């Protein structure tokens, strides 16, 4: 079955005919060509596919795109404004919160959601806040530092 959906992604409205079974992550990557959102496990475990739907972090490999009809979606591509990094992106850059970068889009979106709920988390709140997003490279220490730096930046929107 084909469905007509309209989804606002990073502030731009997109309308497309899609199959009901198309996952949100594939809608973003394959229909809209927004390949910043990654697919790691495809089994809701790794968080690489994390995006914001109506401001809430979700694993987009476990949501059908039709369920996002009418919703506001933010991906990593939507964070930078006027050529300037979002404070979370800047903090990951400054603190070297990545190595291969595969988990980074999901990690950054998870951090954006975490800091919105809890603007000055403790280290243990950070570690439990990001536990749904896995990194195989960094050992997490620099990621935690990056989250702390973003929280302390005073620039969070």
């Amino acid at each position, binding site marked *: 079955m084909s469905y007509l959906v309209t989804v606002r992604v990073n502030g731009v409205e997109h309308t497309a005919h899609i199959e009901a079974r198309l996952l949100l992550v594939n809608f973003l990557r394959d229909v809209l060509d927004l390949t910043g959102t990654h697919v790691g496990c*495809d089994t809701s475990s790794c968080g690489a596919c994390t995006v914001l739907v109506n401001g809430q*972090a979700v694993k987009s490999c476990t949501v059908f795109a039709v369920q996002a009809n009418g919703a506001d979606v933010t991906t990593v591509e939507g964070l930078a404004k006027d050529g300037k990094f979002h404070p979370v992106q800047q903090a990951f850059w400054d603190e070297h919160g990545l190595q291969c970068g595969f988990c980074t889009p999901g990690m950054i979106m998870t951090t954006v959601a975490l800091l919105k709920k809890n603007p000055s988390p403790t280290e243990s709140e950070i570690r439990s806040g990001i536990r*749904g997003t896995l990194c195989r490279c960094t050992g997490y220490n620099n990621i935690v530092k990056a989250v702390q730096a973003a929280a302390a930046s005073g620039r969070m929107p």
Partner: protein
Amino acid sequence: MVTSDFEYLAPSTVAEASRLLSKYRGEAKLLAGGHSLIPLMKLRLAEPKYLIDISQVKGLSGIKDERSAIAIGAATTYAEIESSALIRRRFPILAEAAGQIADLQVRNRGTIGGSLAHADPAGDMPAVVLALGAELVALTARGTRTISVDRLNVDLLTTSLRPSEVLTTIRIPNLPARTGAAYKKFENKASHYAVVGVAAVVTMGAGGVCTGARIAVTGAGPKPVRAKRTERILIGKELTPSVIRRAASRAGAEIGDRFNDDIHASSEYRAHLTAVMAERAITEAAARAK
């Protein structure tokens, strides 16, 4: 992974959802948070022809104060439960347990009703709601039915909800005075599902003697169960550490030889964990009952 194709239906009322469920009986499934169903569909262990999305249905989510109880809509997410001031004040065990489920992202989608209907043997909410003595309301095309939580769980992934019933409300009755509640789980480090979890609700009488106890165990066997042997040992006694330990050591009695045995834990280890988690949960509940 790609699921089988299906027809997507997004009713706006519960009555409409239940009508669709009856109409496509056997071929349709409700879709709430999708965090149990979509993974199953990706593996093609479930191939519904129709998916009825209830996540947007009005009146199916949210938390209401009914004075003698609170009523939680079936499509209420864990994140909403975790952050509800009403729940934190009246039933902190629910917020505590919700906050231990999976991760931030999963808690934004997963719902209490989906968890109860799916009946994963390692689910958290089924045990907590069982210990709290909840009452469940289900709707069919013919009307509503109230189900005591004690009669909900039938077997592995099987509940007494009928295929055409929509679970609409989870009603948690007020607890008596001097009652404490706690949920303790030993979690799988990757998924955070319960390897074993125990929810304890304990009431203390004026004389310092336990007058009521509901203890529920999840993760250990095919379905969540009340540890009735443990409850009987606690009731009528002062809850000293040795009484609690002796009672907790019987928390696996109802599971008998049906302890789960899988890559996460052997049945022997689960039997051991059941006693340990029961002791921790009862100790904490008793401390809070004062």
